[in-house]
């Protein structure tokens, strides 16, 4: 048949991918850094789902966490500080065959990247967005981030941060068209894995805030949550993120929450009922911009040439 060869093709051949197929350079994060756990989870997920490495793109900004793509043996895009979301949107725009993950930090996403964050949520493209929230700027050595707690001492606020943090969950839930908003902890591998899996399965933008340990600069940050697990409110629902029995045993405060309930999700996001862990909100009906951007992908050379000819005719003398 005359025309362009299709831009991509279905993977034919049978492959059996093992963990090593997703492992690249040795991670250079500090010992005990929560980033290691997330990396492990994603590698396992990719293996379990047998995602072809050449079809996976990890897009990140700049920060400790944003080194992530270098440690995955897939395609990766270690971008500019604050800009992974526009890049990832562009990657996906004409390549619906790719699995695009976004790795971003609390500075990357909630400070310099704020505008892109808000508008990516609105556009609701089919991306899995992992916010590594360690409440601090790691890579540049301990400056406050927008999520650093009030009074926390940092290099830019040696007298303590004077203004309370923004809550990425509450902000995200304020954006029309949000379609999947979840939270998990880097130190519970089961829930972490289950959350990333649900996020990846979701059609639309899945926003996952990961409370992340930074032993180097925020040593005691999550101590209370780790010691008193009742401070965590595990959200459970048939449409939510599956709660493993091991998780249930560890966290006594389990709450039923229907992710279709936006008001309830917003309330839980405040943390008044405990730090939420699980799916706060899901709306599978939110329009997905990637369905708009993929339009016209099937055009053949003949179509294109004919289209252009018709355009030129409009200007003909």
């Amino acid at each position: 048949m005359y025309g362009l060869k299709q831009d991509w093709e279905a993977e034919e051949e049978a492959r059996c991918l093992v963990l090593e197929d997703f492992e690249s350079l040795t991670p250079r994060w500090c010992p005990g850094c929560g980033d290691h756990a997330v990396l492990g989870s994603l590698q396992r997920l990719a293996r379990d789902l047998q995602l072809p490495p050449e079809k996976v793109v990890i897009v990140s900004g700049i920060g400790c966490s944003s080194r992530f793509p270098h440690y995955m043996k897939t395609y990766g895009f270690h971008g500019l500080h604050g800009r992974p979301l526009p890049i990832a949107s562009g990657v996906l725009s004409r390549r619906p065959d790719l699995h695009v993950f976004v790795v971003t930090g609390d500075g990357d996403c909630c400070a310099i990247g704020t505008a892109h964050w808000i508008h990516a949520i609105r556009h609701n493209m089919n991306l899995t967005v992992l916010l590594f929230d360690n409440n601090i700027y790691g890579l540049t050595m301990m400056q406050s981030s927008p999520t650093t707690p009030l009074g926390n001492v940092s290099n830019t606020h040696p007298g303590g941060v004077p203004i309370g943090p923004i809550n990425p969950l509450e902000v995200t839930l304020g954006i029309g068209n949000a379609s999947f908003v979840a939270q998990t902890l880097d130190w519970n591998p089961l829930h972490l894995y289950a959350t990333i899996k649900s996020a990846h399965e979701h059609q639309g933008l899945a926003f996952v805030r990961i409370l992340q340990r930074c032993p180097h600069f925020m040593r005691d940050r999550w101590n209370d949550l780790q010691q008193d697990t009742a401070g965590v409110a595990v959200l459970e629902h048939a449409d939510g993120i599956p709660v493993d029995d091991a998780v249930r045993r560890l966290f006594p405060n389990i709450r039923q929450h229907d992710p279709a309930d936006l008001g309830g999700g917003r309330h839980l996001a405040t943390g008044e009922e405990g730090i939420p862990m699980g799916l706060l909100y899901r709306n599978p009906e939110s329009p997905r911009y990637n369905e708009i951007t993929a339009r016209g992908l099937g055009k053949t050379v003949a179509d294109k040439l004919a289209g252009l000819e018709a355009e030129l005719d409009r200007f003909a003398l």
Partner: protein
Amino acid sequence: MGEASQSTAAKPAQPDVQDVAEHIVEIISDSGEGAQTAGQLFGTVSARMGNGVWTVEIIPAEIEPPYRSRAGASGNRIRIATDAVSNMGEAADVVVAFNEQVPYSRIDVGGLRPGTILFLESMWAQSPDELIRKAYAEALADFRHRGYEVVEVPMNDECLKVVEDPKRGKNIWILGLLCALYERDAAIVQMLIERKLGRKGKAIVESNMALFNAGYKWAEQNAPWRFRVAVKPSDVDRVVMNGNEALALGIMAAGIEVCSMYPITPATSVSHYLAARFAKVGGIVHQAEDEIAAIGFAIGASYAGKTAVTVTSGPGLALKSEFIGFATMAEIPLVIIDVQRGGPSTGLPTRVEQGDLLAALFGQPGDTPNIVMAPTTIEECFHFVITARKLAETFRMPVILLSDASLATAQQPFPRPSAREEWLAPPVDTSPWQQDVAPYAWDPETGLSQRPIPGQRGGEYVVTGLAHDEESHVAYESKVNQQGLKMRRRKLATLARSLKPPTVYGDTEGEILVVGWGSTRGAIEEAVDRVRGHGHKVSSLTLHFLSPLEPGLKEIFRHFNKVMTIEICYSDPPEAGEGRTYAQLAFLLRAQTLVDVDCWSCVPGVPLPPRVIEAAIRERLPDHEQIPEVDLENVPCTV
């Protein structure tokens, strides 16, 4: 009312028929009265008949300016000639004005001269509002005092004879008037009107043709002149469009599928056009939340194998500079179109300037070799996008196309291109990647390398804006950093080697060589012709590549006593001495060639008329000829 109208032009027995090589016509009205449409149609019919044409828009500074105000003038200038026309020329020969205030906006910028024929809507003389009647009378007297040939025309009354609401038809009546004056082919007009309005129904077409015919007839009976601008019918198919439309069509023709942008004047209309038509060839326009997101999205698409374009103007270029540097560093192909406007800062959003040249070359911190090209005609706006995408992909780097507000809205006919398969981007390659080829396996001589595209099995790699080795691994070693910088520069040297030296317009030796780039080309060449007409050995040179510079410049310059640039950007006069600020191209050429390149430039916000350029050149001739009516310190800016 028809009877009450008073035409000051008595019906002439025999009109005065003049053969002219060219004429400049302006149609100006309050915005919304359709002068733009009439002007465009007049240009199109002239082009179709075989005239050279250059049309420029006259745009009010406000969105809904007050009626009958000089700030509100909206319309078109159409320069037609027997030969090709490349610029908007100087003062108008014929002006049609829908009220007596709008001509002042044109007078303010030197758009009229003694002798200009002014067809003036006369209904205001009968206005019920005394102030208006008074204003009209005053203006009329003033126009005559200034030496214009004023023809009062009862446009409204005449239109009323044909339609009920003359507001929505006056422009076509005027078109008729002009077509009679210039003996244009009414059949062509009919065809154009059908093309334009056909889908609105037959009745609309008919009432418009009725207006056209009425205007035509009125002029035949009342206008004492006919102007014959001989036509040279073209033997090839031609199209007529403005620069932004040409860029948009070029984007389509290049097989680019993604235009990612944030609105900014005067670039936005490229994306308006695409938003309406891009789907025909399978493309999409992404309006991002800001310029940074726009280029980020484009880079993402490019990385994934779909080389994208982002369209902007100066302030947007500034915001994109971090990402441009990234694309250079990570070697991601990308087309960036900067439709330049007046600067610095928000500056003159709707006006022309060539002030972004150095920012395009040096705007990114660090060493950031990129390709910078500039179209000089509407036709080149189309073709350069196609070239840009190819270069971006071959050299794996951003290509910046510098257009400007003048090219953006000016219309010019050119041979109709035919869509070609080889212009289109190839499909995304998803075949397995060659084993053991690094993602930056730089050829040490050319700096070129092949890049893996997501989907290519075995090509998995991680792009980064950090210093990196051939594997794209972050590397801080001195050698690696130096190698990366060298390889990226080498690509530009490789491109330079493939370029031909530019061709001199005129003799290849002489007194003065005038160098320019971009939209000023037409006016420069016309000015050079005029100066040569005065017996001086003057030539000109147009650069299309600014980075890398086209080769052989030093050799070309050697054959002239003096080399100077003409630019629309700031420069000090020569008296400024050692610390003189040179115009931007002059600066570049001086550094690169060490030739003492002089410059004359100014920043009037409007295209430079040939006359001004002529004056600037003649002033620099050994005998310092002056053109008395041109004050080069305060350029009279015709449009």
